[in-house]
C-alpha cells in the first residue's frame, strides 16, 4: 500500500489559541481512516487545513507526494496573466489620467508623465504580483485540490439550497465544456451532449443513494440525512482519490446510517480512500481500518479500532483526569 496523504507537524493558531499543535499522520491509499478525539482536539481544523480552506502556520501536508501549497500556488501562466491584468488596469488608469491632463491643454506634459507612470506602475505591479502570488493566492485556492482529486464534505451540510438535488450533483463534475461561457454559445451541441452524459451519471448516483424520488426537490427542503447523502454524492461525482468526510452520519437515522456505511465500504473496495471525522463511535469503529486519535491539537496515537478501544491514554483523553 502506498501513502496518499502525509501530514507532518501541522500547526494552526487562532489568535492566542493553538488549535492544531504538531499533528502528524499518514493515510494509506484505499483505506478508511477515522480521525477521532474529544471536543476541541482540532479535528475539524485539521480537515480545513488539509482541504485548503485554512492556511497552516507551520508543518507540511503532502498529497500524492506533492506539497499541498505547491498544488494551490498558481502556475506560471496564471501569474503572467495576473501580472498582465494588473498592468492593463494600472496602464488604463494612467492612460485616462493622461488623456484627462491633455484635455486641460496646458498640462500636456503632465499627462504624458502620468500615463507613463501609470504604465510603469502597472508593469511593476504585474511583476510584484507574479512574485507575490505564491503568498497572496495560497489559500483562496482550495479548488485546485479538488482538481487533483482531494475533496471534502462539510460538518454542517452545505447543500446549495435553492438548487435541486439533481442540479447539486450535476454541478460537481470537473471541466465541463458548458462551464466555459464561449462554449455555451458557440458549441451548443457539444455542451448539450455532455450535459446529457452528466445528467445520466447524476441520475445513477441518485439511484445509488436512493435520492431519486427527490431529484427535482430544492435541496433546502431535504431532510438532514438526505442532505448528508447528497453531500457524499456530490463529491463522488468528481471521482476523487481521497475523500474527507466531516461527520457523515451526524443527524442521519440509524437505518440510513447502515446504508451509508455499507456504501462507503463498497466505495472503498472500488478504490476510493476515505478519511472520516465522526462522533458516532459505533460507526467509526466498525468502518475504519485505522484510527487516529487527536487530543489538544496533537496526534495522540494511531492504531486499529480494537487497539484504540483498549488504549488507556485514549480513555483518559476522553474522560479527562490524571
Amino acid at each position: 500500500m502506498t501513502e496518499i496523504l502525509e501530514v507532518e507537524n501541522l500547526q494552526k493558531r487562532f489568535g492566542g489559541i493553538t488549535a492544531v499543535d504538531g499533528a502528524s499522520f499518514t493515510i494509506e491509499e484505499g483505506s478508511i481512516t477515522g480521525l477521532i478525539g474529544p471536543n476541541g482536539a482540532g479535528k475539524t481544523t485539521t480537515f480545513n487545513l488539509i482541504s485548503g480552506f485554512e492556511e497552516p502556520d507551520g508543518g507540511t501536508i503532502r498529497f500524492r507526494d506533492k506539497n499541498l501549497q505547491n498544488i494551490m500556488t498558481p502556475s506560471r501562466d496564471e501569474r503572467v496573466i495576473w501580472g498582465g491584468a494588473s498592468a492593463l488596469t494600472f496602464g488604463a488608469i494612467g492612460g485616462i489620467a493622461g488623456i484627462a491632463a491633455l484635455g486641460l491643454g496646458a498640462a500636456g506634459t503632465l499627462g504624458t508623465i502620468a500615463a507613463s507612470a501609470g504604465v510603469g506602475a502597472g508593469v511593476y505591479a504585474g511583476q510584484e504580483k507574479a512574485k507575490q502570488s505564491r503568498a497572496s493566492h495560497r489559500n483562496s485556492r482550495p479548488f485546485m485540490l479538488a482538481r487533483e482529486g482531494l475533496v471534502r464534505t462539510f460538518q454542517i451540510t452545505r447543500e446549495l439550497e435553492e438548487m435541486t438535488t439533481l442540479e447539486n450533483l450535476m454541478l460537481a463534475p470537473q471541466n465541463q465544456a458548458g462551464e466555459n461561457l464561449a462554449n455555451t454559445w458557440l458549441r451548443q451541441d457539444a455542451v448539450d451532449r455532455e450535459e446529457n452524459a452528466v445528467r445520466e451519471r447524476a441520475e445513477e448516483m441518485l439511484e445509488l443513494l436512493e435520492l431519486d424520488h427527490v431529484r427535482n426537490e430544492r435541496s433546502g427542503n431535504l431532510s438532514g440525512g438526505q442532505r448528508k447523502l447528497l453531500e457524499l454524492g456530490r463529491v463522488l461525482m468528481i471521482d476523487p482519490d481521497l475523500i474527507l468526510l466531516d461527520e457523515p452520519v451526524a443527524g442521519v437515522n440509524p437505518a440510513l446510517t447502515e446504508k451509508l456505511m455499507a456504501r462507503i465500504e463498497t466505495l472503498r473496495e472500488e478504490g476510493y480512500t476515505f478519511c472520516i471525522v465522526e462522533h458516532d463511535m459505533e460507526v467509526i469503529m466498525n468502518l475504519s481500518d485505522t484510527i487516529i486519535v487527536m487530543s489538544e491539537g496533537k496526534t495522540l496515537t494511531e492504531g486499529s479500532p480494537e487497539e484504540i478501544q483498549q488504549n488507556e491514554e485514549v480513555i483518559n483523553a476522553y474522560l479527562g483526569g490524571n
Partner: protein
Amino acid sequence: MAVETGLTNAVLNGIVTGSIVALGAIGLALVYDIADVPNFAHGDLLTLGAYAALFVNRPGTVPGFEAFATDSGIGTGGLGMLFFVSVASVLGTVYHLGGIRALKGEWWGIDVPPAIGLATHAIVAVVVGALVIFGAPSFLAALLFAVVLAGALVPLMESYVFRKFRAKEASLAMMLIVSLALAFIVRFSIQTIFGGEIRSYEVDTVIPFFGRELDITLAKFFDLFVANNGFSIGIRETRGQEADLLLTLSYSWLELAAIIGVAAAVAWGVYRWRKGTAAVIGPRLGAALGAIGVFILGGAALSSGSLPADPWYGTRVRSSPLRLGIILTALGMMALLHYLLRATTLGKAMRATSDNRDLAMVRGINTRRVMMTVWIIAGLFGALGGVLLGFLFSNLTINLGFNLLLPMFAGVILGGINVYGAIFGSYVVGLAMEVGIFAIPGLSATYRIPVAFVVLLIVLLVKPEGIVGGN
C-alpha cells in the same frame, strides 16, 4: 506681504469637512455596528433634519405651513403646532425606549416612582417645546426643533421596517436594499412637501465680539509667518483694506520653545497620571487635552508684537468663525458621546451589545432598547449635522445628505465599523478630500467625493477589512 493659501489651508478645510462627515458617520457607524444595518438612508436623515429646521426658521416658505406664518414670524396657531410637535417628539423619543413603562422612568436604570418619571419627562418636553416657540424663528431654536423631531422620527425606521426584516432573518444584502428603499422614501417625501426649490436659512450672522461686530459667516484670513525672530499669526478681514488687521499674535522662538516644552511636559505628566485608569479621560485623551490647554494658555499669555517685516515663509489660511465653530461643535458632540459610552451604564451596555449581542442578553441587557437608543442617537446626530451643513452651504437641496453619504460610508469602513474608528476614518476622508483637491492640479471641487472614494478603494485593496480591522 502678499501670502497665498497653501497646504495649511487645505488641512484646515479638511478638518472642517472631516468634522461634518464625522457627525453623520457616528450615527451611521453605531447603527451599522449594533443594529447591523448598513443604512443607505442615513444621508437622507441629514436632509430630513436640515429641512425640518425650516419649520421654525423660515415658516413662511414651508408649503402648507405658511398659512400659520405671519410676515414677522409664526402665528399663534403655528406656534401651537410647533409646541405640540416638540413636546410629542420628546415624549415619543422616550416612548421608543420601551413604551409607556419607559415614560414612567423604567429606562433610567434606577427605581423611580412612576409619577416622578412621568413628571420629569413631561417637564423636559414642555421646556423643550417652550424653548422652541420662544426662540423661534432663531437658528438655534430651529436646530433644537430639528434635532428633537429627528430623534423621534428616525427610530420609527427600526420599529416599523428593519425590525420586521430582521425577524425574517434578512441577509445583510437585503438590509442594504431595504435601507436604499427607505432612502428613496425619505428623500422624496421631503421633496413632495418642499418641491424642487433651493432653500436657505435666515440667520443673523453678526455677533458682538470684543466690542466689535463680527460676521461669523464672512471668511477671515489667518496669515502665518515664520521669520528670523519667531512665529506670528495675523488675522485679517477678507474684505476691505489689507491693513485691517483684527488680531496679531507673535511669538519669539524662545517663547515658542517654552510653550512646546511645557506642553510636552504636561502631556507626558498627564499621560503618566492617567495611565492604567479607564475613566472617561484616558491617558491619551488626557495628554492631548493637557497639551492643547497649555498651547491656548501659553499662546494667550505670551502673545505680543507685530508681524515680521521680512518673513522666511508665510502662508495664509482662509476660514470663517462659522467653520471653526463647526469643528468645535463636532468635537463637543463627540465629547458628549464619548462620555455617554464610557461613563454611563447605557453607553457601556451599547458597547457590550456591540461586542457580543448574545452575551449582552445573557447579562440581562435589553438589547432591543439598546438598538432603539442607537437609532435615536443616529437621528440626533444626523439632524444636527444636516442643519449645520445647510447653514454652512447656505442653501438646502434635496441631495444635501445623499452627497455626503459616500464620504460617511468611506469613513465608517476605513475605521472598521465602530464609533471611534468612524470618527478617525471621517477625518482621514475629510483631509484626503480637501488636501487631494489642493494637491492635484486641475482637479475641480466636484471631485471631492471621488477623492474620498479613491482613498477608500486603495485602503480596501490593501486591507479588505478596513484600517482598524473587522470586529
